[in-house]
């Protein structure tokens, strides 16, 4: 019989309950501010539901009525430079943090609605109604509230989606050594999702000052927490990751306040992340003005029990006990709050008709639709652009991958903000391919090996980028991992600037390598360009030479938008003339390069197939104009260069290596035929790989990818179809 001994978790886990003594000892100012916050938020949410009932809120209205105290109790512990983010149900979190920001000296129940408070309420309501004067210019609405100055990073409609980004902000606080913290709020419905669990692990491993604040309101829409997990005490998750955790009654704002203070002590002193699970209750359904019982997933009795514990009543009665306020004072506060919301709504509505309507002049104009998808690149004004033909520095033959490492080393030595992260980037003499060679030796605190959790670490990178103090360079060992990290890559990083109204930048560089030809098979062999190009927000560059790589990487690192930098394993160990004494020049984003002039057909290609195409063209003696696109995103396509070529040749062959399904040429072909229809002598022809993702078997892999023979076939086709078949 084996001997067993009891193991205990390394992390403390406790339940905190307030006593009468705590209430008596509580700072009167804290209680006054709590009461005012609770009443203002309650009145705000009631007005939102009322407007939603009148059809004046487009989209969902997820009210926090009943569960305001979790946000209020925690926000009152924070300083202005601390940050929060939240999920789809976040009006109360947004307002609690912002009320505290505009009233740093505390709130007075007798004079609750000051001018800054009124402006906050009106501007928040405007955002929820989708109006131009909102915090995100009406783009964000109810679920995407951001006010950077007040420390609200932006709330999120993807369950758990904002959590990795919050970790990025926390990373920046830690790196800056300010002692500031980030609270990421989410509900019981988010506790089982990868973004949250991966981030708990990463934040704990890296000791980030991040509080995972779980508002356990027991219902994920209608699914009960007991149904969704075998451990419904959600703060138990901390045990798995070594995170100190608290379980509290979230209807008690003082308990929230005290637990958050304990958590802050740990976080501000470098002790890493914390978890607070606050048991709360939303009085209404997921969305709208009906109670949950109306939908049959809970009872009226249960709702009445929780209503009896309304945090507004709790704080009011405790304050009356301490004679800090009387019934009339509470009634006055309630009336002030309701009147403030009446006034805020009136400013946004036209009540001249039979039914109230949104004031027509307050909508954003439709031409605002695509503004701020990306920045204007003014951050690159005045940089030194030098093409290889004009380069004055020294060029020496060396491996492509050495230039990848060299330019990053050069930039990190010049720019302390740059931080590199990814799987194994800090070991193996520069990661799996040598692309980060030398970085961890010379910049050990800025070259970070990550756990294998792409969604968390790229999201964390997004959070760092949005924070703005540091510039993350994230590596995906293989591009196919973008599917693993798809939420952070496409829903968060790509959309953040636009979705939050256009004021926030996202200067993140994502490096990855196309590995077709290495035998890594179906799940490691994609070319990500086609998929990334469908995602507004991303810029994409792909260099075919080390010289261009250096210049493009310098531009990518200077750029205020997310930039995907695609490399290729076929190029890594090939030798090229590469810069050695000047790594500080730039290649423009959005500038293609004619690498071989010609007049019979325009070959549009990128990355490793540039050289392969030139060689095929020479072998067949086709007078093709080969263009290295270099920038691949929709905004980066150099139509001037491409157009001049097509007007000359009248025939187009798009050459890429990867599978046809995710192919980049779809976008390119579509744009070309619509822009240059009258100049085309045949359909836009394309060379791509097969339909299937490349297999591990060497023969099948070769068959699945486009190579020299397929390019030759493409050239023959494009010549034959203009009536000039090759011999």
């Amino acid at each position: 019989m084996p001997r067993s001994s009891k193991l205990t978790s390394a992390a403390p886990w406790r339940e905190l309950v307030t006593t009468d003594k705590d209430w008596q000892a509580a700072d009167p100012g804290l209680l006054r501010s709590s009461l005012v916050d609770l009443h203002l938020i309650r009145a705000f949410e009631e007005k939102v539901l009322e407007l939603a009932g009148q059809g004046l809120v487009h989209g969902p209205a997820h009210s926090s009525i009943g569960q305001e105290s979790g946000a209020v109790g925690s926000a009152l512990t924070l300083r202005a430079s601390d940050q929060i983010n939240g999920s789809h149900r976040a009006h109360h979190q947004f307002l609690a943090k912002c009320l505290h920001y505009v009233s740093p000296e505390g709130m007075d129940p007798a004079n609750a609605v000051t001018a800054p408070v009124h402006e906050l309420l009106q501007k928040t309501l405007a955002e929820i109604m989708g109006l131009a004067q909102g915090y995100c210019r009406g783009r964000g609405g109810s679920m995407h509230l951001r006010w950077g100055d007040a420390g609200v990073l932006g709330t999120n409609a993807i369950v758990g989606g904002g959590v990795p980004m919050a970790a990025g902000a926390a990373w920046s606080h830690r790196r800056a050594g300010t002692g500031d913290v980030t609270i990421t709020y989410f509900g019981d419905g988010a506790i089982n999702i990868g973004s949250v669990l991966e981030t708990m692990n990463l934040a704990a491993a890296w000791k980030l000052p991040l509080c995972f604040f779980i508002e356990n309101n027991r219902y994920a829409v209608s699914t009960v927490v007991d149904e969704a997990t075998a451990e419904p005490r959600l703060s138990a998750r901390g045990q798995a990751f070594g995170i100190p955790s608290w379980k509290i009654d979230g209807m008690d704002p003082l308990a929230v306040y005290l637990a958050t203070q304990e958590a802050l002590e740990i976080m501000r002193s470098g002790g890493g992340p914390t978890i607070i699970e606050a048991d709360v209750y939303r009085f209404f359904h997921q969305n709208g003005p009906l109670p949950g019982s109306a939908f049959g997933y809970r009872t009226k009795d249960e709702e009445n029990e929780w209503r009896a514990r309304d945090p507004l009543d709790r704080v009011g009665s405790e304050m009356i006990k301490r004679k800090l306020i009387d019934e009339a004072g509470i009634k006055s506060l309630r009336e002030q709050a309701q009147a403030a919301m009446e006034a805020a709504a009136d400013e946004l509505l036209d009540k001249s008709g039979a039914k109230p309507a949104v004031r027509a002049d307050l909508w954003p104009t439709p031409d605002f639709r695509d503004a701020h998808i990306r920045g204007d690149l003014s951050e690159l004004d005045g940089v030194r652009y030098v093409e290889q033909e004009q380069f004055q520095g020294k060029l020496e033959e060396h491996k492509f991958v050495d230039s990848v490492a060299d330019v990053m080393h050069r930039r990190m030595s010049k720019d302390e903000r740059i931080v590199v992260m990814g799987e194994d980037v800090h070991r193996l003499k520069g990661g799996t391919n040598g692309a980060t060679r030398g970085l961890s030796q010379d910049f050990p605190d800025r070259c970070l090996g990550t756990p294998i959790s792409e969604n968390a670490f790229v999201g964390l990178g997004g959070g760092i980028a949005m924070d703005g103090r540091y510039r993350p360079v994230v590596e995906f060992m293989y591009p196919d991992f973008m599917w693993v990290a798809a939420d952070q890559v496409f829903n968060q990083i790509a959309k953040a600037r636009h979705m939050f109204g256009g004021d926030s930048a996202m200067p993140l560089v994502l490096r990855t390598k196309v590995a077709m030809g290495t035998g890594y098979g179906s799940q490691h062999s994609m070319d990500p360009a086609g998929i990334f190009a469908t995602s507004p927000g991303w810029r994409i560059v792909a260099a075919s030479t080390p010289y261009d790589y250096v210049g493009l990487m310098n531009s990518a690192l200077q750029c205020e938008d997310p930039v995907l930098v695609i490399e290729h394993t076929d190029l890594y160990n090939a030798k090229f003339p590469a810069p050695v004494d000047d790594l500080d020049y730039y290649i423009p984003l959005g500038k293609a390069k004619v690498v071989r002039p010609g007049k019979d057909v325009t070959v549009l290609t990128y990355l490793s197939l540039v050289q392969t195409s030139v060689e095929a063209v020479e072998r067949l003696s086709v007078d093709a104009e080969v263009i290295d696109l270099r920038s691949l995103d929709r905004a980066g396509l150099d139509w001037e260069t491409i157009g001049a070529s097509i007007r000359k040749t009248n025939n187009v062959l798009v050459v890429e290596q990867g599978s046809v399904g995710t192919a980049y040429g779809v976008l390119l072909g579509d744009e070309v035929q619509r822009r240059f229809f009258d100049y085309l002598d045949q359909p836009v022809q394309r060379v791509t790989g097969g339909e299937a993702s490349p297999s591990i078997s060497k023969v099948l892999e070769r068959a699945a990818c486009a190579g020299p023979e397929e390019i030759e076939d493409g050239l023959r086709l494009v010549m034959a179809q203009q009536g000039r078949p090759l011999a």
Partner: protein
Amino acid sequence: MAIKIELPSVAAGMEEATLVRWVKVEGDQVSKGETLAEMETDKAVMELETEADGVLGRILVPGGSEGVTVGTMIGVLLEPGEDESALAAFQAPSAPSEPAAPASPEPETAPEPQAAPAQNPVSAESQGQASAPEREGRVFASPLARRLANEYGLDLSGIQGSGPHGRIVRLDVERAREAAPVQAAAPAAASIQASSVPEGARVERIPNSGMRKTIARRLTESKQQVPHFYLTMEVDVEEMLALRGRLNAKSSGADRKYRLSVNDIVVYAAARALRRVPDVNASWSEEAILRYLDVDVCVAVATEGGLVTPVIHEADRKGLAEISGEIRDLAHRARAGKLAPAEYQGGGFTISNLGMYGIREFSAIINPPQAAILAVGAVEKRPVVRNDQLAVGNVMIMTLSSDHRVVDGAVGARFLAELRALLEDPLELLV
């Protein structure tokens, strides 16, 4: 049911013709294959044959009409047993350039098996690309080809597509433009018109035939666009004449098989010289010099309508008598306007001989898209030096006009030297 008689397209790119005359008159019984009428294109007069037995019911376009567009209904054929009531629906078109009005009383879907295949798309310069009566489906052309055709004023329906599924691509339009540069020649035509006679001068007006217009257009274009240069050489034809005399003496009497002219021998020798200097037997194109693999030699023939250049195909493989007979036949039929299009289209080199008019020497305009033309003068007795002795010799002067884009001076000279060697020592022709 009555059958429409439409003006057919008999040559590539043919858009219109002159309806010279009707051979039959209304009411004539005709059988399939019989000649109904004659039409003249820019090159030749052709016969219009009936496609079925019947009676020529009505003539809609009278003989002598110029500029009749291909596809125009010019008459109606009654099928056996039909009477004139079947003609009620058919009326003369209001203007020859317009397509026949489809004012047919029968449903448009009614099958017209005889008429349908002959229905060619109407030239529709005035209508842009959309040709209403076109029934064989749309013309497939690349976007670029459409745009260029529009710019050049070419009708896509007359162009053969070489792309996938017969798609007309740029190259096809460019070739069509070279072959029939109607628009390109317009400025030249305008300037010719501008050089009108002085006011008050007494003139007789001779309307230009299609052939006359084509000659004017093509030669103007050639002289303006092709960089000509000229090489002249004297040939001592003493031995060649002696050979000719001996050969002709063998073929005398009633069953004479041949009678060789000097020109026949020049053509025969030139064909062999072209085989030896193939660079002269070529055409210019923007992409490449097109060197002809066959030696097809055109011979200029003066006719009443103007200059015609029938082709001796593969002349380097034909015997002297064969060439002689062919030239004679072609010239005869050319003067009668009876050449088929294939007989005057193509060729890689042209020979023009005005020796019979006593012209000593002249230079000719290149016949595009060829790159050279040989102008042959009269054989004259002149002092020659033989073995350092002055003697009376028979001399002929030849001038080669060459397109310098294709033929450089030395190449042209080499060709002439080769030709002279063959003519001065005809034994050379045997090897």
